């Protein structure tokens, strides 16, 4: 057992280490994955920046080209004005068409040398009306710079982003060295940004036109903080004016997001499965422990069973549902003389059945295989291997397996040879006792009758002797002698009756049951007992109603019972007793029996001796044999009644017995 424990402990500590590994691996895996994601993110950012730089460069190029081509158009107009080939109508047509084609322009205007607006395209405008004079400092600076330098000049944006800032480009007009004013292209700051950047660019980046101090326009009103920005200086057109390009947050990468999500989910699933695995292993371990414990229990249980099996002296034998022996314990084998191996698998008729009883036993076996075994077992004779026979008692009970299904029958067998022998001895003994008790009862009867005969005999002798004496003396009177002789013959009759009773009793006769009036039976019995009672100074009070239903009895036997009980009662009341009264009372007991009670005021008996009273040879009388009550009980029970004793309230004993009314 200690070895097992050590191994289990070892396994358990190893399993703890085994658990660290998957957890660590799972942790590292998660860390590595997120590191990878980080790297990818960074890589993405770098790529974005690179793309931005490229796009910005491209945009700058495009913007410059575009602006130059605009200036070129404005230059054409200026030249046309200068050489006089462009009249007002031509200006209007060309300029309006251009503005329509290039939405970054809001207006194209001719101002004369005094900064007064002369022509404006397109017509339908509310600003730049002809005759207005440009007055702002920025416009003046731009105009004069252009006049002075003779090249197009950009002014600083005017207005704010909210109210639509404008940028002007002044292209000077010279006719014969004389200034004829300037053609002014008016850009809307927002329109400029929108037309300069193509759609794909605008969707990717936010373009902002700004100086250090002010913002004049943006492609998107949403300010976006971004790591990825590029600056395009618009230096030539304006001072400090620049385009800031900010990349929108890249559109969420569905694939990547899906990937992250999937990985996270997988990690979660993995963690869960690991946890479930751990729980499962824990359960397994606990189940194993339970199983080990169960195993130990089963082993000790089975050892206990085996020990019990080997020590019981009851023979045990199991059969399956067909009657094939599946098991026999050592006690059974020892009883029958065949070994368990020899018996196993045998079908009825079994080898231990005596040849002469095979037919009977087959029937019996068929019955209990059908489940009709008698509850209190049945007796069979067994033939040992040696051929010797013995009596056994067999009990059959169903054998039920662990699943509640009956798998066969268990038979237990005990050797009752000794019990049988004892019973036989007991029976013989009982017979002898009965014989003896009959003799004793007869002896007692004879003694009682002799006792009673004395009385009339002595009287007869007295009468006769008295007569003889008188006759001898010759001084007699005839009447006197006659009277005495009559009295003597009366006494002789009395003696004769007593003798008749004795003959009735002594005659060996079969019990003859017939309906008999109980009061007569009792009176006859009391007649016998009266003498003893008188001698002992006991008064007998009889209360047996004559209208009781007749009892179905052997009259002489019941007389003996009554006589015996009355005599016992009389004897129990010693001469010193001052209440010497014995009562014999009968009453109906239900509608099928009559109960008779004989109550005395004698010594009584101890309650614990109640049953002893009725055992043979138990007596409290110095000359008694102790047979009387035992015989009385046998007689009453023979009649289907019962006899019992109770203490008499107030002293003495009551003996009661019942007798059947009908047969």
């Amino acid at each position, binding site marked *: 057992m200690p070895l097992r424990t050590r191994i289990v402990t070892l396994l358990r500590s190893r399993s703890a280490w085994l658990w660290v590994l998957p957890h660590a691996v799972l942790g590292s895996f998660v860390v590595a994955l997120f590191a990878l994601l980080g790297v990818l993110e960074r890589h993405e950012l770098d790529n974005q920046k690179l793309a931005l730089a490229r796009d910005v460069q491209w945009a700058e190029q495009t913007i410059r080209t575009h602006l130059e081509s605009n200036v070129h158009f404005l230059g054409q107009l200026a030249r046309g004005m200068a050489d006089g080939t462009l009249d007002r109508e031509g200006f209007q047509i060309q300029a309006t068409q251009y503005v329509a084609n290039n939405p970054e322009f809001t207006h194209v205007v001719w101002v004369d040398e005094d900064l007064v607006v002369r022509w404006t395209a397109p017509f339908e405008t509310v600003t730049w009306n002809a005759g207005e004079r440009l007055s702002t400092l920025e416009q003046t600076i731009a105009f004069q710079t252009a006049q002075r330098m003779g090249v197009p000049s950009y002014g600083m944006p005017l207005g704010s982003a909210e109210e639509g800032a404008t940028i002007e480009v002044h292209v000077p007009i010279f006719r014969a060295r004389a200034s004829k004013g300037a053609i002014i292209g008016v850009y809307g700051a927002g329109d400029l940004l929108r037309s300069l950047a193509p759609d794909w660019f605008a969707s990717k980046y936010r373009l902002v036109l700004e100086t250090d101090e002010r913002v004049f326009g943006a492609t998107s009103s949403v300010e976006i903080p971004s790591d990825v920005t590029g600056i395009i200086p618009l230096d030539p057109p304006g001072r400090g004016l620049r385009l800031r390009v900010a990349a929108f947050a890249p559109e969420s990468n569905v694939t990547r997001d899906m990937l992250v999500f999937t990985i996270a989910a997988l990690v979660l699933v993995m963690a869960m499965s690991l946890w479930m695995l751990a729980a499962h292993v824990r359960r397994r371990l606990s189940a194993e422990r339970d199983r080990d414990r169960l195993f130990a229990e089963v082993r000790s249980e089975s050892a206990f069973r085996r020990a019990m099996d080997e020590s019981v002296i009851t023979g045990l034998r199991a059969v399956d549902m067909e009657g094939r022996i599946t098991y026999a314990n050592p006690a059974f084998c020892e009883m029958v003389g065949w070994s368990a191996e020899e018996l196993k698998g045998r079908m009825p008729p079994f080898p231990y059945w005596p040849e002469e009883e095979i037919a009977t036993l087959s029937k019996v076996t068929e019955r209990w295989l059908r489940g009709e075994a008698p509850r209190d077992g049945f007796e069979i004779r067994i033939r040992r291997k040696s051929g010797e026979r013995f009596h056994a008692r067999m009990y059959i009970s169903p054998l039920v397996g662990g699943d509640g299904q009956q798998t066969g029958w268990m038979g237990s067998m005990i050797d009752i040879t000794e019990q049988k022998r004892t019973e036989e001895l007991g029976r013989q003994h009982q017979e002898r006792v009965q014989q003896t008790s009959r003799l004793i009862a007869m002896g007692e009867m004879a003694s009682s009758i002799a006792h009673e005969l004395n*009385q009339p005999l*002595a009287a*007869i002798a007295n009468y006769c002797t008295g007569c003889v004496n008188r006759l001898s003396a010759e001084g007699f009177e005839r009447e006197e002698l006659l009277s*005495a002789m009559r009295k003597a013959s009366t006494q002789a009759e009395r003696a004769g009756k007593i003798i008749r009773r004795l003959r009735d009793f002594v005659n060996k006769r079969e019990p003859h049951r017939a309906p008999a009036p109980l009061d007569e039976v009792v009176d006859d019995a009391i007649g016998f007992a009266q003498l003893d009672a008188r001698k002992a*100074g006991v008064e007998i009070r009889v209360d047996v109603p004559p209208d009781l239903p007749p009892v179905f009895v052997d009259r002489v036997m019941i007389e003996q019972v009554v006589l015996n009980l009355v005599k016992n009662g009389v004897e129990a009341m010693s001469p010193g007793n001052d209440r010497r009264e014995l009562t014999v009372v009968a009453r109906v007991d239900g509608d099928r029996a009559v109960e008779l009670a004989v109550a005395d005021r004698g010594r009584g008996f101890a309650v614990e001796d109640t049953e002893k009273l009725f055992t043979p040879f138990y007596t409290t009388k110095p000359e008694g044999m102790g047979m009387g009550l035992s015989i009385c009980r046998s007689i009453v029970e023979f009649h289907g009644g019962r006899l019992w004793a109770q203490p008499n309230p107030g002293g003495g004993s009551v003996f009661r017995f019942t007798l059947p009314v009908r047969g």
Partner: protein
Amino acid sequence: VADATQRVYIVDDDEAMRDSLVWLLESHGLPVVAFGSASSFLDAYRADMRGCVVLDVRMPGMSGLELHDRLAAMRATLPVVFVTGHGDVPMAVSAVKKGAVDFIEKPFAEKDLLRLVTQALELEREQAGARQRQAEARRRLESLTAREREVLDLVVAGKPNKLIADELGISPKTVEVHRARVMEKMEVGSVAELVQLVLEGRGRA
């Protein structure tokens, strides 16, 4: 067999037994009185009854033994003969030890019963005679004077007159006179008779 005042008292509860006993004893000329129970005998009992009792041992109510005990307690002088049945012998023996004359077992022969009854009557007669003599002796003794009584005692003790005179401090002559008076009053003729009488008077028959 019996004198004029003696009776045989029979106590037996069995009527036939009682009646036949009367019949039998009367055939011998014995005067018999019968009682059916112990208590009826006790009711009739008087101290000057003469004769004997023939008593049945076993009777309902008061038994023969009990009656015997009661009579003894009353210092009755009637001798008792017990009649017993079969098996009552030990009881009868104990009764005899207590003073009964004897017992006779049923069934009995006439002569045995007669012998016991006769014995009892004779015994009673003797005892009655002795009682009578004792009473007479006492009566005579009581008639003596004190001085005569002193002289009597010394005479009975066997002392001669001279010694008696010395002892009583009187003259021998006076002793002679007293002595003659004692002999006269006691109605005896010799010293031997005197001694006999004094002994009887003291209750030693």
